[in-house]
C-alpha cells in the first residue's frame, strides 16, 4: 500500500457544515419575504431594481478582483447580499444608472478597497445609500409607489399629520418608502429565520428597536409608529447585524444596538433628516473596534499580571 498518500494536517480533522457561502445564502433567504412584499407593493420595477443591483455588485466585485489579480470570491454570495440590501434601501423609481453607481461605491470604494470581505469597517450598502442620498437628493427622496403616482411621502415625514398611515398599513407595508423597508411583517419573518438558523443573535436588533421605542416614548411620541416606519427594521435586522462592521461579543452587540437606537431617535426627532437609521449604523460602525475591545469576554481562569 502506498503510504505516501496519507495526509498529515493539524487538528481538528472535522469541521462544521456552516461556511461563508451558506451563511450568505441564509441571509438571502431571510430577505426573500421582503423582496416578495416589495414586488407586491411597488410592482415589477422593484424586482428589476434588485436584479440590477445584485448583478452590478457581483460584476464589480468580479472585475475588481480580476483587475487586482486577487482571488475571485463572488462565489461566497456576499456581493449578492450587498446588492439586495442596497436595492432595499432605494426608492423604486430611482434611475437605473444611479443604482449602478451606488453598487460601484458599495463594492469597490467601501468593500474591496479596504481588502474585501471581512476587512471593510463600514457597511457597504449603508455607506452607498448615504453617498447616494447626498449625491442624488431629488431622486433618492422621491418615494412614489408607482410610475403614474405623484410623489408620496414616507410615514416619517407624515408623522403627526392626518395622512399618517394606520399601524396595520405600516405593519403590512403598503405605503411610501424604500423598496425593502416598508413591510414590517416580511422583515420580521426574515429576522426569525436568521435567529432559527443561528446566523445572528437577537441582541443588536432587539436592543436597537427597543431603544428607539423607549426613547421615543420618553419624548412623548408614538413608539409603535417609530418602530414600524422608515428603515428601522431593515437596518436593525439586516445591517446592524453585519459581521465585519459590528461587534461580535454579546455585550458589544448590546452597546452597538443602544448607540444605534439613540442616534436614530436624535436624528429623527431633532435632526434635519427625516430618517436616521443609516447615519446611526454608520457612526456606530466606526466605533465598532473600540466597542469590541471594551467588551472582550472574561478569560476563564485568567490572572491579571502586574
Amino acid at each position: 500500500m502506498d503510504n505516501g498518500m496519507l495526509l498529515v494536517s493539524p487538528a481538528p480533522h472535522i469541521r462544521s457544515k456552516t461556511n461563508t457561502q451558506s451563511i450568505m445564502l441564509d441571509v438571502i433567504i431571510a430577505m426573500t419575504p421582503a423582496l416578495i412584499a416589495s414586488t407586491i407593493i411597488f410592482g415589477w420595477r422593484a424586482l428589476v431594481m434588485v436584479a440590477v443591483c445584485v448583478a452590478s455588485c457581483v460584476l464589480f466585485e468580479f472585475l475588481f478582483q480580476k483587475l487586482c489579480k486577487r482571488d475571485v470570491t463572488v462565489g461566497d454570495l456576499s456581493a449578492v447580499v450587498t446588492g439586495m440590501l442596497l436595492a432595499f434601501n432605494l426608492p423604486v423609481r430611482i434611475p437605473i444608472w444611479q443604482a449602478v453607481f451606488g453598487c460601484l461605491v458599495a463594492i469597490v470604494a467601501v468593500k474591496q478597497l479596504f481588502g474585501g470581505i471581512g476587512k471593510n469597517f463600514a457597511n457597504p450598502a449603508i455607506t452607498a445609500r448615504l453617498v447616494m442620498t447626498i449625491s442624488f437628493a431629488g431622486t433618492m427622496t422621491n418615494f412614489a409607489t408607482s410610475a403614474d403616482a405623484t410623489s408620496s411621502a414616507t410615514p416619517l415625514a407624515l408623522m403627526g399629520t392626518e395622512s399618517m398611515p394606520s399601524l396595520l398599513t405600516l405593519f403590512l407595508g403598503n405605503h411610501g418608502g424604500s423598496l425593502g423597508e416598508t413591510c414590517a411583517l416580511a422583515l420580521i419573518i426574515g429576522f426569525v429565520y436568521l435567529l432559527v438558523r443561528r446566523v445572528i443573535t437577537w441582541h443588536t436588533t432587539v436592543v436597537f428597536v427597543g431603544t428607539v421605542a423607549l426613547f421615543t416614548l420618553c419624548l412623548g411620541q408614538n413608539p409603535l409608529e417609530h418602530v414600524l416606519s422608515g428603515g428601522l427594521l431593515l437596518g436593525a435586522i439586516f445591517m446592524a447585524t453585519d459581521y465585519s462592521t459590528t461587534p461580535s461579543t454579546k455585550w458589544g452587540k448590546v452597546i452597538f444596538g443602544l448607540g444605534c437606537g439613540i442616534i436614530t431617535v436624535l436624528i429623527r426627532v431633532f435632526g434635519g433628516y427625516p430618517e436616521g437609521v443609516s447615519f446611526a449604523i454608520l457612526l456606530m460602525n466606526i466605533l465598532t473596534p473600540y466597542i469590541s475591545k471594551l467588551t472582550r469576554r472574561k478569560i476563564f481562569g485568567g490572572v491579571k499580571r502586574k
Partner: protein
Amino acid sequence: MFKLSGVHVKHCKNTAKLKAERIPTPKSITVPMSMHIGAPAVPIVKVGDTVKVGQLIGEADPGLSSPVYSGVSGTVKKIDGIISISGAQIPTVVIESDGEQTIAESVVPYEVNTREEFLEALSRSGIVGLGGAGFPTLVKLKADVSKIDTLLINGAECEPYITSDTRTMIDDAAAVADGIRLVAGFLEIKNIVIGIEKNKLECIASMRRAVADIAGASVKPLPSVYPQGGEKVLVYHTLGRVIKEGGLPLDCGVIVMNCTTIAAISRFIRTGMPLVEKCITVDGSAVATPKNVIAPIGTPVMDLIDFCGGFSEEPRKMLYGGPMMGIALPDTSSPVLKQTNAVLAFGKKEATPPKVTPCIKCGRCVEHCPFGLDPTAISKAYKENDPETLEKLKVNLCMECGCCSYVCPAKRNIVQRNKMAKTMLRNYQIEKKKREEAQKNG
C-alpha cells in the same frame, strides 16, 4: 452556575456497543521509549535478548519519566531511533514475537498496605495518563496530597468516535471502582466524583452501581458538549472550581485521573502485569468493520486495521485519537502507544481539507471558545509579531481543543495559529527573563 461554551459535534460513537476483542499476537512490536510527557526511558535490552510479556525493556529516567515493558514474548530484533510525531528522534525497541506470550517471572500480584508501598509498586507499572496526555501517573500521585480533597475521574470521553473509555466503564467497572478504592484509600481522599457526559446513560448506570458501596463517591452527569473532558472544563463543571492561569488541578485540591488509567492501576496491583496493552477504538469511514480492540503496545496500526476487516476504501488520513485533537499519522506502520485510545482512518471525502476563505469576523470562534479567548485578536497580534499583546490576550491558556477551527465558517486553521502564537509568546517570555537576569547581574 454558568457553563463554559464548546461545540456540539456529531458523536459518531459507532463502536459504543462493541465489547473489546483481543487481536491475535502481532508478529512484531515497535515500542518507542517515549510515550509519556518527560524524558524518554532508557532501553536496557540488547539485540538478540529474549524477552517475556511484562518484562522491563526501558528503565525510567530519574526525572519525569516512565518505564516501558514488553507486550509480547520473543526476541529483540533492533534498537533503533524513530522520528516521533513531534519531530524528535526517539530510541525504539523492536521485538519479534514468538507467539507464545510467556509471562515474565516478575509479574506477580502486589501486596500493598501503605501509601509508600502503593507508590513503590506503581513505579513499576509504566502507567501514564491514558486519556491522551501521557503524564506519568506516579508523579501525579507522589505530589503533596495534603491539600487534596477530591479524586476526580474523567469519564467524559467527549471526542467523537472514541469509545474505549465507554467500554472500560461498562466492562471494567469493577476495576475502575477498585482503582478508586486503592488511590482514594492510600491517599486518604474523602470525596470521589466521576464525570461522565450525560448521553452515556449506560456508563452512568454502570459506574453508579460500581461505586455504590464507596463512601463519598458520586457520578456527575455532564453536558454532552465538546470538550467536557478538558481538564479545566471538567474540574469546573463537576466541582465548580476554577484552575487559575499557570495552576494545576492540585492547586484547587483535585487529582484528575482518566477512568481507564484508574482501571489500569487496579489491574496492575491485582495481577502485577504492567501497562503492556491497550483498548483501542478502530473506526472511521475507511475501516471496513469498526471495532474496539485490545492490542499490545507497539503493535503496528496496520495490524489493528487488518483485524477490523482491512480498509473499505483507500485511506487518505489516519489519526491517533479523535478527530478534534487527534494527531495525523504519517504511515500505517506507526505503533500503538500507551496513550493511544483510538486509531481512525478516513477516506478521501473526509480527508480532503476544506478551502480556506477570508475571515468574515463572525465571532463564532470567540463565542465557542470554552475559555473566552479571542482568536481573531490573537491571529492579528501574531501576524504583527506582537508577543506583548499575545500576553494580554492570554493565548497561553489555549488548550488547543479545536472548537474555534471547528466552527469557523471560513475554515481557517485557527487553533494551529494559536499554537504558533503560544510558541511565540513562550520564546518572548524566555528572552525577557534572560534579559532581566542579565540586567540584574550586570
